[in-house]
């Protein structure tokens, strides 16, 4: 057991659109006990919403009978959220992450831009035909982390 881990979850859910809000609710309740601002919590919710939405509409092309896996690690100083689908994958990750780039009409191409601007780090691993994993990290305020560890 890692002493540093404050909380940890792993869950799988169907690629149904109503599960986007489920993912947000899980994230909110996991970190509502942390000392972060409402604005930061809202931003993390947006990032998670974007990643899960992408798995459904792009990864699985809107199919509702596939599985998405979300893992969350909350430590004193950092939180790491990974969202994984076994969908179509991304051929050119750099291009996909460019603000405004989208392969679907009526979509703004801002999902990755929001993830990048609202999180401290975004890592994308993808294999065409195999799936995509998006890893979102958020660093908590250093002084808060120290205070929590001291308790």
């Amino acid at each position: 057991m890692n002493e540093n881990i404050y909380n940890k979850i792993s869950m799988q859910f169907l690629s149904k659109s109503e599960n986007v809000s489920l993912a947000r609710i899980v994230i909110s309740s996991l970190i509502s006990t942390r000392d972060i601002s409402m604005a930061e919590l809202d931003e993390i919710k947006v990032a998670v919403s974007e990643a899960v939405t992408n798995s459904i509409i792009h990864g699985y092309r809107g199919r509702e009978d596939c599985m998405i896996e979300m893992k969350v690690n909350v430590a004193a100083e950092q939180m790491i959220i990974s969202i994984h689908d076994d969908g179509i994958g991304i051929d050119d990750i750099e291009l996909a992450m460019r603000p405004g780039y989208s392969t679907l009409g009526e979509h703004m191409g801002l999902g990755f831009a929001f993830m990048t601007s609202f999180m401290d780090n975004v890592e994308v691993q993808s294999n065409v035909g195999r799936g995509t994993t998006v890893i979102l990290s958020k660093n908590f305020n250093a002084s808060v982390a120290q205070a929590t560890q001291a308790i």
Partner: protein
Amino acid sequence: MQISFSNKKYGNSVWLVAKIKGEIDMAVAGDFRQKLQDKMDISNCHNLLLNMRDVTFIDSSGLGVILGRYRQMAAMGGKIAISGAKENVYRLLLASGLDKIIQIDKPESLWRTGEVKK
């Protein structure tokens, strides 16, 4: 997400006011788009005001629907405006750049703290 409509007269122009409540994400984006479109078609109104006071969450799926309606209105020579957005929703509207094409009222809480000018 719930949405209700009314017509309001501001000066010489009539506005279709859409009051939206709840969260706007991909689960409701289609419904949101359809309800706005249907009402815009029958009301024959070229000005649309989105009252977002009761919107608690929006992401790029919801913002995409607003952009789409802006384009539709602009093509007919109409306008679209947004009022009442809470801080979190307002920040997303700015981050998406929609404020460059749509008139958006600034949240009171932000001009009170001096973060934005009234």
